[in-house]
């Protein structure tokens, strides 16, 4: 547990000092928002509202891929990953620490992107902000769990920039589908109901458990 907290603190501190991943993800996300403005010029209001949840989640997914791809890059320098693997205790906690740091980073970028998105497309989501935040939190738990696991593998492979999306996207399609469904329904009416949140909770739980258990052999050398 202490390992997880130490890693979380270390990763956030490094990020605070360099702001590499945060800035890269943020600029990328805003650029994609702008790209969509040109991809669907002057669409009627209703169509923008219908497409918005899907588009936002596509941006979230790609920005997360960008951030997750860099999760273990620092650890590769001076072979710090080996030292990390030698840390006492269950290696699952290393996974938890890394995933938690990515969770904070990706969540921050998503919140800022959502702000830009609603401003640019003149949407008013204020009433649903809290349930939407819950949807994002649940989906992010699934994304960072499986993302951290695969990132640790792809970081030590050739073509890692290409490999991570190829590994990750098929496993994240159910998360994306459930998140878009929950976002659309939350914006359309009664808010976030249990049947909408349930698939996200189940997937976040399963992916987090798999990540915790399977992280040990990833670091075996």
């Amino acid at each position, binding site marked *: 547990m202490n390992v997880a907290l130490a890693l979380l603190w270390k990763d956030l501190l490094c990020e605070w000092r360099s702001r590499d991943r945060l800035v890269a993800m943020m600029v990328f996300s805003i650029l994609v928002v702008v790209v969509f403005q040109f991809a669907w010029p002057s669409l009627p209001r209703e169509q923008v509202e219908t497409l918005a949840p899907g588009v936002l989640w596509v941006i979230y997914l790609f920005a997360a891929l960008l951030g997750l791809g860099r999760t273990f890059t620092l650890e590769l320098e001076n072979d710090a990953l080996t030292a990390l693997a030698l840390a006492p205790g269950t290696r699952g906690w290393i996974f938890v620490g890394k995933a938690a740091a990515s969770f904070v980073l990706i969540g921050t970028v998503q919140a800022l992107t959502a702000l830009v998105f609603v401003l640019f497309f003149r949407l008013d989501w204020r009433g649903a902000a809290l349930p939407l935040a819950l949807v994002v939190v649940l989906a992010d738990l699934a994304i960072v769990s*499986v993302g951290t*696991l*695969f990132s640790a*593998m*792809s970081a*030590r*492979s*050739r*073509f*890692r920039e290409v*490999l991570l999306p*190829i*590994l990750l*996207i*098929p*496993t994240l*399609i*159910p998360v994306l*589908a*459930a998140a*878009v*469904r929950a976002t659309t329904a939350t914006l359309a009416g009664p808010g976030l109901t249990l049947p909408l949140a349930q*698939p996200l909770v*189940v*997937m976040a739980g*399963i992916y987090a458990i*798999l990540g915790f258990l*399977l992280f040990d*052999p*990833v670091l*075996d*050398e």
Partner: protein
Amino acid sequence: MQSRTASGAGVPAARMRAVLGWILAGLAPVYAWTVWKAPLDSVQGVMQKILYVHPPTAYGAYLGFVVTAVAGGLFLWRGREDHDRLAVAGAEVGTVFCTLMLITGPIWARGAWGPGNWWVWDARLTLTLLLWFVYLAYLLLRSFTEGDERAARFASIYGIVGIVLIPLNYWIIDLVGGRAQHPQNIERGSLGTGMGLPFLVGNLTLFFAFAYLIVLRWQTAMLESAAEEAALAPADRDPG
């Protein structure tokens, strides 16, 4: 890492392959004959005969995934090389069966559902397509990872996540309302007169073809690693 090579697992694999090969050689002509002689469907005509190929390839695709995940899990647990070779065999043969399923399905669909209907985002079709991508990702992960042992470990992990993904995907796709256009499972008595036998023989033949290919691929991989070990051995003994 414990290593079990051709000398250990190769001999039973060769014997198993010979038995499977003979069964397959016996079944294949019967399969071709029963399909040829099967009555034509009154509505779909000759195209309905894809039924004798398409569902059996689907079972092979899913079975390949199970072999990959179970063998991968065993590799992570016991660290034996032959388990990893079996996992690769499962993924490779599974990919072939999955590809065949994805090719035969649209050919039938275009005929049955009308021109332009090669593909619909039905739950089962979507699931199969994702399964195919997971297979490809598995094989790419292996080829992009340096070091046999590391590639085996990473691939085993991916195989296990992959098999968990199947029920998850099915559930989610069903929830988000994939159009249920794919015919439901063949229910008892739904096959026309004379169609049951070729369907049964088709399933049996393709099952044995699947098993034969798995064992063949497994055996080849074991022989490859034995040859690699043999090539390295003199260098190990004599560093000068």
